[in-house]
């Protein structure tokens, strides 16, 4: 079970939270103008990283705030936690290749 540091409450067990999937997926400004391809990408395409992954979490059994987590999907190490609207931090850990 992950230990996640809520930026508003502090470290809590994973069971306090809900994962909202990949972060920084931008909703097209004017959906009506988006072509089928780009709308489909927005709806369905996710990076599915093996390694560094930026994702949204909600402290649903606590403060109910959404925030972002940068996590290594292979080791589950959490590199950073940051608030909505803040830019994703750079992580030195390069995304590991699939062959490893």
């Amino acid at each position, binding site marked *: *079970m*992950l*230990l996640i540091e809520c930026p508003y409450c502090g470290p809590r*067990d994973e069971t306090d939270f*809900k994962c*909202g999937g990949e972060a920084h997926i931008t*909703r*097209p400004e*004017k*959906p*009506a103008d*988006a072509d*089928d391809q780009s*709308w*489909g990408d927005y*709806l369905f395409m996710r990076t599915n990283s093996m390694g560094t992954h930026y994702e*949204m979490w*909600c402290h*649903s059994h606590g403060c*109910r*705030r*959404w925030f972002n987590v940068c996590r290594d999907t292979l*080791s*589950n190490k*959490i590199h950073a936690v940051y608030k*909505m*609207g803040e830019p994703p931090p750079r992580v030195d850990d390069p995304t590991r290749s699939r062959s490893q």
Partner: protein
Amino acid sequence: MSQGYRLFNGGLIQRDQPRTFRFNGQEYIGFAGDTLASALLANGVHLVGRSFKYHRPRGIFSAGSEEPNALVQLEVGAYTQPNIRATQIELYQGLIANSQNCWPSVEFDIHQINSVFSRLLPSGFYYKTFMWPKRMWMTYERVIRNAAGMGKAPTENDPDIYDKTHAHCDVLVVGTGAAGLSAALAAARTGARVIVADEQSTAGGSLLSRRIQLDDEPAGAWVDAAVLELEALENVTLLTRTTVTSYFEHNFVVAAQRLTDHLPLGSCGDQPRQRLWKIRASQVILATGAHERPLVFKNNDRPGVMLANAAQTYVNRYAVRPGHKAVVFCNNDSGWEAGLDLSDAGVQVTLVDIRGQAAPELEAQARDRDLEILTNHVVVTAHGRRHVRQVEVARLNSDADGLSGSSRIIDCDLVCMAGGWNPALHLFSQSRGRLSYDQNLSCFVPGESVQAERSAGAANGTFDLGFAFSEGREAGKAAAADAGFRQRTKSVSPKVDAKSNSTDIRPLWLVPSASDHPPAKSFVDFQNDATAADLQLAVREGYRSVEHAKRYTTTGMGTDQGKTSNVNALAIIAQITGASIEATGTTTFRPPYTPISFGTLAGRDVGEFMDPVRRTPMHEWHRAHGACWEDVGQWKRAWYYPQEGESMHDATRRECIATRSAIGILDATTLGKIEIRGPDAAVLLNRIYTNGWKSLPVGACRYGLMCAEDGFIFDDGVTLRLAEDRFLMHTTSGNAARVLDWLEIWLQTEWPDLQVYCNSVTEQWATAAISGPFARQLLAELCTDVDLSNQAFPFMTWCTGHVAGIPARIARVSFTGEVSFEINVAADYGMALWSQLMLSGEKYGITPFGTETMHILRAEKGFIIAGQDTDGTVMPADVGLARMVSSAKDFIGKRSMLRPDSLREDRHQLVGLRTDNPKEVLPEGAQIVAEIKPEPPIEMIGYVTSSYWSEHLGHSIALAMLEKGASRHGEQVWLSLADKQVRASVCDPRFYDPNGERMNG
């Protein structure tokens, strides 16, 4: 029965506390401090079970949690537990245990015939034989399970209670052997919060099994002093009888503590039986010790053949002689130490060593005791069916791949195998650390740590006891420092005097045989009956990957997870394929280390505590009036109210007619209610719902459809505008939390600029909905401050007033198709309102109805239920609600409605179905076909989503999703049911009052 194999002196048993127990119906006596296994051995009982596949007689093999053979059915009736290791069961007065896997008795087993025909039962036999024809598998499986079952699950409810607890610590130490105790002491002395856990009943680990001098005193004195110190420290929690079973991410560790398992049944009052510990540790030290490896030779599974360290444990710790005449078969010095201890306990010992020599001091001591020593020798085979009687030994040739000279017979009743040691890497592996193979030690050792974890002692491949003490101490200090406790403390390791400390080992993974190769019945996995020959067959058939070979032969897949078999199997596969052990692979260990009972995992979350139950303020009235319940999410909703002698259908028929012709009353409290407030509240609704909201006047209500971004319907309900900046949204009963989440994620992530907040108010309100031709008359009696006329209070508006003197918000909405009023009052007034409505409504024939009648009435109207008539692939236009989709604004899901798939003409659309036979009520989920063909495939063009008998209409009604359904009204379709075909015609889904004159009136 006398304990004929018990020693007069020594051991950690209490001879003044005898314990009577029964095994396979026979009464025996042991002592407090015994395990079931040691007590059986004290009584000369080795044979405890039959093997899984061949039903070969099997005996006690180990003295700990690695036991593959001695699994018993413990206790009977509600207390019974299958597959419990006799080597871990602490003996208590009145214990009852029975053998598994045997019928009619362990001495004479009918399925032993499998053993005779074992040539026909090679690896993969079950897969090969029983997978065809597929539909017969169920039948085969039942027979196989019956014949080979691994014990029986209890059929009664577990009478015991179980607990759970959460704990945090700076340093968690797993294991209380030399390394673990040293680590715990060193860490604890810095002031760090330390938890120490060990699966055994007392601390000490292998120090309890060996005859070791520490600082010139028996090891027990040092262990006692260490335990005393740890117990006295307030920052230390010492947990014995506690198995750390699982190691998850971020140092989250789960342990199962046995609190009363060692006490007589029924003697513990309301004490919990076990407690599950969920521990978050800053630092973890794994001092889990090592498991001894068996040697693989012919008939190495005979009762009386056991691990050397087990025999040593039985002699030293339990004061039991596991035999009178022992052959110790070893490839390293630890076997010699066991042999010397056995000899000192009066056992006649022959030492058979694969190597040319042992450590000189050991050889000298063996000679002092006149032990027969056979170096460069192997045990080729064991003889004796239900107990070993003899072994054949032979000289190994110089290449160690064959025998030289003829074999010789040695009489014995005990064979001890000392094949080297495997560090117990299970938790390390679970922590996602990779194992690495150590050529010198011939075993896997922990590689680099992945988490804040370190291994110490034998678990780290440090088999030398002296080094284990110092390594444990250093690990304890370092872990405490890493957790922020850097205080300098004094810790000195004791001076160690042990017989064997050498790590000189000569591996021989498979003992050669004079006749066949690989020799038959050389067991690798004892629990799953996998032999070296099985592994060879698997490789020959192409299962070269160790993971495939393991699964094919089921090696390592028993309840012991191959603790004694994995490395031998891996090495034998490597030998057959000619690859190195490292290249062949490792095994990944998965939680739990040893099985945990479901009761322990469930804890107190059982029965009524399994899931919270939500009840409305009127719940007691429903109960008192005989309501049957439907679970909707966590809510208990009244389903229908049967009167004496009524079936469900009788009751709903009566409730439907009453609502259509007089008044029905429904407890609608469970509908989700969310208050949405702020200057941008209307903007939010406009973006969330498919229809427009800005123009909705205060005092009005509107039905809204909510879609996900993919354009599919996700929820629906009526929302009231309470003020310019304030709305009350209703959601479906089971979906309220998800809808609130939905609003919040959009507000927090995509539109943080909107000034809106949302609050769940579901539980603040109680709602009684009255419906029917007399609803207005009844309400007028109880509510005098509101003009209820249709002109003053039209359909889809709301107002405030008093009902029965209670402040109320009344909404004119309808789910039944009749004139309806939803009366909302503060939750505490719910019961008073309901009682008054029932009292005053009696003269009109007011009839309470439940969810079933509600479903029928709405289906008559063609109203959908999101989640029943929609399934996450349905768009508003598909259910005839295209008019609810605004073209003037953007909203969540709108763009998706223009994707090519959304515009396909052959989409499924909501229709009504009327069966040719009006009395035929279709099953929900029935598939619709255009024509009946004599055999499949028959193209399916839709399915029934809702289906009821309509008493009011006098015929059955069904809603269905049908390909191009909107354009098929009037057509005929077929429904292919299990036992017949039914014809129906497609119609408008609005069966009753299609123009809404009644509910508007």
